[in-house]
């Protein structure tokens, strides 16, 4: 390694940075920080500041947030409302129900489709594309299409159900709380399982073929191979995908907003919908921000679980 901090070099290029040899072992770290700095600053501006701002708003009695207009005095009123009102607990309950149903079913469907397209058969590439397709459609577009298909008067779904004789009268997906919740679950699963499927497929492909061969020689049947080889090998991936789906369901806004606007009777009001309602329908920005902060804390806890899992999943 040459020493470039010679007087000659220092004079010729001038400036502080030019005199430091960043490839030298003692300066290497400084160069790293220097390169990181723009990214860190950018993150501070676009991520950290808004978070701090929303925490700040959640502790003020604000109707419409206006920055630099002289902040209101800090108060815990919004949090008193948050934990005191039935709305929050209801939204939490709806969110957890949704997470359980969508997360659970997406994993099962994702696992099944991943196993299917992991087999060798003609047209596998097309089948893989087909499985991944719902993921590629923009959320709002997909939801609008489903909203039309699920319409109680003109919808394709009701027409098919009636024609096939499975129901005698149209299901009111818009006004029946259970039907609305089911519709939201259905569209979310439809939109969410492909990601599961893709991640699980990657997981399946990473299981060495020899493990299956060894199990076959050991006399394990199809189900035993699934139970003793596939499942244990896949657990870390399933864990990660499950947490990712949980985070997505927690935060997803577009599908519910387009499909039901959180109704009927709050049957599909999740924490995200509640945040939006409070902030932009009732213009109670402080309360909306409080819901947002709660969601953020819950998501942070789940993310922590995700990171922990990923670290553990390395065999």
């Amino acid at each position, binding site marked *: 390694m040459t020493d470039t901090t010679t007087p000659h070099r220092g004079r010729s290029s001038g400036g502080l940075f030019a005199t430091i040899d960043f490839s030298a072992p003692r300066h290497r770290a400084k160069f790293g920080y220097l390169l990181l700095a723009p990214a860190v600053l950018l993150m501070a501006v676009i991520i950290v500041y808004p978070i701090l701002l929303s925490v700040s708003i959640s502790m003020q009695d604000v109707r419409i947030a206006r920055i630099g207009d002289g902040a209101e005095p800090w108060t815990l009123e919004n949090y008193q409302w948050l934990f005191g009102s039935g709305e929050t607990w209801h939204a939490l309950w709806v969110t957890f129900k949704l997470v359980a149903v969508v997360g659970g079913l997406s994993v099962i469907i994702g696992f099944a489709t991943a196993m299917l397209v992991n087999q060798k058969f003609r047209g596998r590439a097309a089948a893989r594309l087909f499985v991944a397709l719902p993921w590629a459609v923009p959320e709002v577009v997909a939801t609008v299409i489903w909203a039309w298909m699920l319409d109680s008067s003109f919808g394709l779904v009701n027409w098919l159900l009636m024609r096939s004789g499975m129901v005698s009268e149209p299901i009111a997906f818009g006004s029946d709380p259970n039907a609305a919740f089911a519709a939201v679950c259905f569209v979310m699963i439809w939109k969410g399982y492909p990601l599961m499927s893709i991640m699980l497929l990657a997981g399946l492909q990473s299981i060495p073929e020899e493990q299956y061969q060894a199990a076959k020689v050991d006399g394990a*049947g199809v189900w035993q191979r699934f139970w003793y080889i596939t499942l244990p090998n896949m657990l870390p991936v399933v864990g990660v995908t499950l947490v990712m789906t949980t985070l997505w369901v927690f935060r997803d806004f577009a599908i519910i907003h387009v499909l039901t606007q959180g109704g009927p009777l709050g049957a599909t009001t999740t924490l995200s919908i509640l945040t939006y309602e409070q902030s932009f329908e009732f213009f109670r920005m402080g309360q909306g921000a409080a819901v947002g902060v709660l969601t953020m804390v819950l998501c942070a806890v789940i993310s922590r679980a995700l990171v922990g899992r990923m670290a553990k999943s390395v065999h």
Partner: protein
Amino acid sequence: MATVQFDQIKKSYGAVEAIRDFNLDIADGEFCVFVGPSGCGKSTALKMLAGLEATTGGTISIGGRDVTELGPGKRDIAMVFQNYALYPHMSVRKNIGFGLKMQGMAARDINTRVEEAARVLELTPYLDRKPRALSGGQRQRVALGRAIVREPKAFLMDEPLSNLDAKLRVQTRSEIVKLQKRLGVTTIYVTHDQTEALTMADKIVVMKGGEIQQVGSAEDLFHTPNNIFVAGFIGSPGMNFFHGTVATGADGPVTRFGETKIALPAKCAAMAGRDMIFGIRPEHLRVAESGPSVGLTLVENLGTEKILHFHTPGQNMLELDRTALANDEERDAQSMLIRVIDDRRYRDGETLNLSFPVDKIHVFDPDTNEVAG
């Protein structure tokens, strides 16, 4: 314990024939090694025996029972894989006992058998560890344990030593042989390493391009190779080959090596006037007072032995592409090697006289690549 028979086994992938006319009898308790360059079909043959690959034609019998259409679990065999294929989420104990569990054996009996196998393989202290907490050699032994605990009719081993470092490989090699001798279980072992084949096997099956080239003991293959491929493949370094026309000399058949005549085996008398390929092993060439003189191009000193390189005389040079050695990347038609064990110092560029012991010269037909005469 059982005999293993391959009868007219064929395997094709579409139009490509990976294995054809594979006929082989392996006796009870025999250690049989399939050896050959990569892509020769040795692993495919083993997988067909294991039931992991379907055969295209022919029958496979284990212990006199036709197993061609049986699944791997029903053939009563155990297999050791190249990368061990241990189940990463199971402890060593569960890994070894998995096969017995699949057979529906009671947990207590499994444990007894597993501990016995672990004792034999000196794995007892590691029984409750996961495979990832073991060294390569220990993992290898777990894979062996998984095989021996089943007490199968045959062991199938697919390059089980290739993931070990050189020293451990030599050590494990002899351990496997000792274990096999003690248990007396018929073993079919696949490797691309001819040293492994020579040191371990009772019976060696040399394969190339999906066909058996020769079956025999290490002695047979080394001293009486059937064809130019086996001659070149077995032995390290491999046999030297050169090209020459058979002429009739005063004391019998001769050929020219460079400008000097060398005597040929008596059987060559019948080939007078023909172009033949001659082979001689590096350790059979002798440095002598008289005989063809060659200039050393490279001297490799390996401590006890030295490998001397010299140029093959131009007119004796082989056209490799026309022989069965075409795909042997290590082979160089322009050089021949001498392997010497003596105290003399050799220098690059030195000129030596060589003698070609007449009984060590192999003669091959250039058209068929088979041994001639």
